[in-house]
């Protein structure tokens, strides 16, 4: 059973704002879901390895290539005069 404090810590980690109503709904659902997935505890896996996903080599030579969609990428930003505008990270001195 998950405690409310722990639940709040998880939503903080997920960086998602929840209204009070959403918190109640999701917290109650969470209990049901965790109860259901806890079924996996029945399975003995001491001698089982983790599943690996096979990938082919994706390495290529580190050559600069002209990107066809570089300009298009910039268009999809919150764009100001061709620059990407982001929110201020460091607070101003008097704040």
């Amino acid at each position, binding site marked *: 059973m998950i405690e409310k404090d722990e639940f709040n810590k998880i939503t903080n980690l997920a*960086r998602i704002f929840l209204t009070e109503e*959403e918190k109640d709904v999701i917290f109650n659902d969470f209990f049901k879901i965790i109860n259901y*997935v806890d*079924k*996996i*505890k029945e399975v003995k*896996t001491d001698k089982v390895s983790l599943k690996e996903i096979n990938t*082919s080599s994706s390495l290529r030579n580190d050559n600069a290539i002209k990107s066809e969609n570089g300009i*298009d990428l910039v268009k999809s930003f919150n764009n100001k005069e061709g620059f990407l505008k982001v929110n201020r990270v460091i607070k101003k001195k008097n704040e």
Partner: protein
Amino acid sequence: MTIKDIREGLNKNDFSVVEITNFFIDKIKKDKSGSFITISEKLALELANNSDKDISLGIKKDLLGIPFGIKDNIAVKNVLYTAGSKMLENHKSCYDAEVIEKLKKNGSVILGKLNMDEFAMGSSNESSFFGNVSNPHDPERVAGGSSGGSAASVALGLSVFSLGSDTGGSIRQPASFCGVVGLKPTYGSVSRRGLISLASSLDQIGSLTKNIDDSISVFKVISGRDPLDSTSKETDKKIKEIDFSKIKIGVPKEYFIDGIDPRIEKMIKDCIDKLYKKGIEIKEISLPHTKYALPVYYIIMSSEASTNLSRYDGLRYGFNKKEKKDIIDCYFNNRGDGFGLEVKRRIILGTYCLSSGYKDAYYNKAMKIRNLIENDFNDAFKEVDIIISPTCPELPFKIGEKNINPVSMYLSDILTVTANLSGIPAISMPCGKINNLPVGIQLMGNKFEDLKMLEIAKYFEKIWK
């Protein structure tokens, strides 16, 4: 209309590609099912014009001039790319997905983007920011999800075929609910480049079609290695001769569970009986870890989703709420307002499963059980060629019926998730109706034997008609 019908019509000059495209666009504009989010009329007519020119030059391509729809989590350059979410409501793609590049080269015509559960999280198409998709056979019922728009559009004749994505059954379940064929290929046989990631080790692009022949045609075009997707592999495009008298069918006892609608169980068993009467060997098999598949799926899927969706913060693209104090405030508010309830629920679940103190007990444990599930299938395919089961344990349910309890919604996927966990190909095809609602039967094949599975499905299609 099937791919064969359109090809014949084009060959006989009954209509041009532009004419048939306009026919579909007019139909889509009048449609009330909610299947389409975006109609790309200008692009469709541009591609149709090019296809007509190719036809006049005598160029032959498999899907030349065939109009199709695309689930809205697959990138089409300069077209809205929303994943059914407010977070990407006004976002346009700046590139084509690999499957779209291939279909464009083949002369296919893009009609528009199809409605879906938000970020492909759902089994009913009720979580889309753009509204529900209603079932073509009963508008008070769901079309299934998350590829609800993809399935409904083919069933309604709004597109000849459509592309969807399947992470835990999101092509096959809506295919079953809408009475069409839905193919989830082997993991790695179709490039995921340009597919908005939900769970990267489970996602696969596939097709929804009217029949198995069309499914084969689409698979041959979209499959194959993509150097920009390191999980993709070369696929065999040649169909080998199959001696149908020697194929063996496996029927897993764990798939005929308590809780399955008895009418569906009877219908599936009648289908298996028809195969037996044709002299096909039927063998009961066991996939012993089946009962753990759904909890394993939800742990792995939500863990991977929580990581994949962490990129949506509104800074570079997507929903961006104007009022905020600083960067952290920005993350919380953009994600809080941009995501719907089901997405938030799964991100939080995934964050929990990956968090310190729980990762071993949940995520790592689930990945080990996943190995056991895959081994069950490896062992089964040493004895049989194809495994048969129902696609869904239930008929299409009423809109709103399952919104109260998320676990009851998740149980819709109980028979489909194993194919995603083990990476094998699986297809749902219609096998009858109950109270005018379609029922789907699922075939599963061995890894990278997609064409073998499809040929067997085509043979069964004739027996079950």
